[in-house]
């Protein structure tokens, strides 16, 4: 943000000089509204570049987390979109990339959980259909087992095993105590073992 304020308004290179991270949407909106000389096109270009960067770096992680909650491609895509919008609206400043990712996953998780309550209508699970059509029975079996877990266990399992987050990071993302996360992880694993009849082991 400091970079933006120090730059000369009206200069065509203002936005290029801004770090994407430090120059949030609020600053851009401020300059645009205050007639500081930024054109709609340059604001739009900045937003686009920020969005593209998030999509490149974290798009898949957000989409997969959303899918793990909602089991539906359209819903997951909307969560990805809403997370991006929240990011641009809030224009948060982070200490490092880990915090940035944690923030995005936290928002995506919350939006997904809200949607679970709001929307119980869609039953289409494209991933399951794809696995079945490809006759990947073992993967179908695993996916069905993970899907059947309660949300609190499923989200922990996903973040721990897929995203490789530590229990402390999961606690930060889900806003839970670390002991709760550990307990959910253990119980989730136990339940999976029960369902899969110890056919597989998490390692």
């Amino acid at each position: 943000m400091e970079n933006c304020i120090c730059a000369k308004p009206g200069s065509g290179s203002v936005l290029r000089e801004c770090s994407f991270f430090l120059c949030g949407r609020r600053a851009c909106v401020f300059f645009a509204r205050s007639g500081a000389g930024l054109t709609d096109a340059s604001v739009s270009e900045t937003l686009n570049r920020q969005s593209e960067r998030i999509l490149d770096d974290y798009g898949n992680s957000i989409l997969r987390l959303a899918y793990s909650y909602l089991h539906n491609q359209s819903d997951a895509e909307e969560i990805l979109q809403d997370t991006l919008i929240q990011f641009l609206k809030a224009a948060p400043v982070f200490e490092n990339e880990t915090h940035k990712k944690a923030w995005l996953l936290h928002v995506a998780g919350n939006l997904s959980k809200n949607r679970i309550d709001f929307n119980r209508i869609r039953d289409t699970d494209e991933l399951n259909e794809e696995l079945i059509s490809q006759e990947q029975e073992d993967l179908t079996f695993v996916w069905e087992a993970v899907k059947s877990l309660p949300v609190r266990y499923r989200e922990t399992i996903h973040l721990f095993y897929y995203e490789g987050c530590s229990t402390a990071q999961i606690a930060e993302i889900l806003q839970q105590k670390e002991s709760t996360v550990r307990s959910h992880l253990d119980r989730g694993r136990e339940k999976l073992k029960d369902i899969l009849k110890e056919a597989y082991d998490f390692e």
Partner: protein
Amino acid sequence: MTLSEKYDKIMGKIEVTEGMRRNVLSAVQNADLSAGSKIIRFPNWKRYLSAAACLVVIVSCVFLGFKLFHQTGSPPVQASGTISECAGIDELAETVGFPISDVATLPFEATASSYISFWGRLGQIVYSGADGQSAVYRKSVGSEDNSGDYNDYSDIEEIKEGSVTVTLKGNDGLYNLAWWTDGEYSYSLSISPGTDISAWETIIEGIQ
């Protein structure tokens, strides 16, 4: 392939496609990004339900308060008795009013012991060993579990010792707790570190 690898493979099938990318970017461009506060209104039924719940709580409090205020008769009496430390096994037996003996077959040599009477109904002896071992022996009238040990143990076994069935609880084949009753008295012995079943058989045989 581990379950974790399978899950990775499953998740690998979900990715941001070019079409999805275009849709998302287009939606972001068209979104209203002004940082206005979002007002979320409670649905009416939730509002009424909340009000009704508050009313029920208030009415209940008033009713209970009225009952308590006008309550007659004698006030509740706390059970008499105290927790008292005794000088030795004889004093403990005298205080609780039933025979109780030291445990002579502990798996370690006790370097210290203490004798406590709980409310004159339960006798407890705590033994400590030189290397941090400890044992807590309890005896009380009745047939309820008197161990006071509410830990979750993965291993639970029952063994027969004479005419009684002893329940052993522990983890990984080592048992920390034994509880049994002869119908008249309830007994429990908790030992740390845990020990195996054969050692427990010797210990309990000594108590019986």
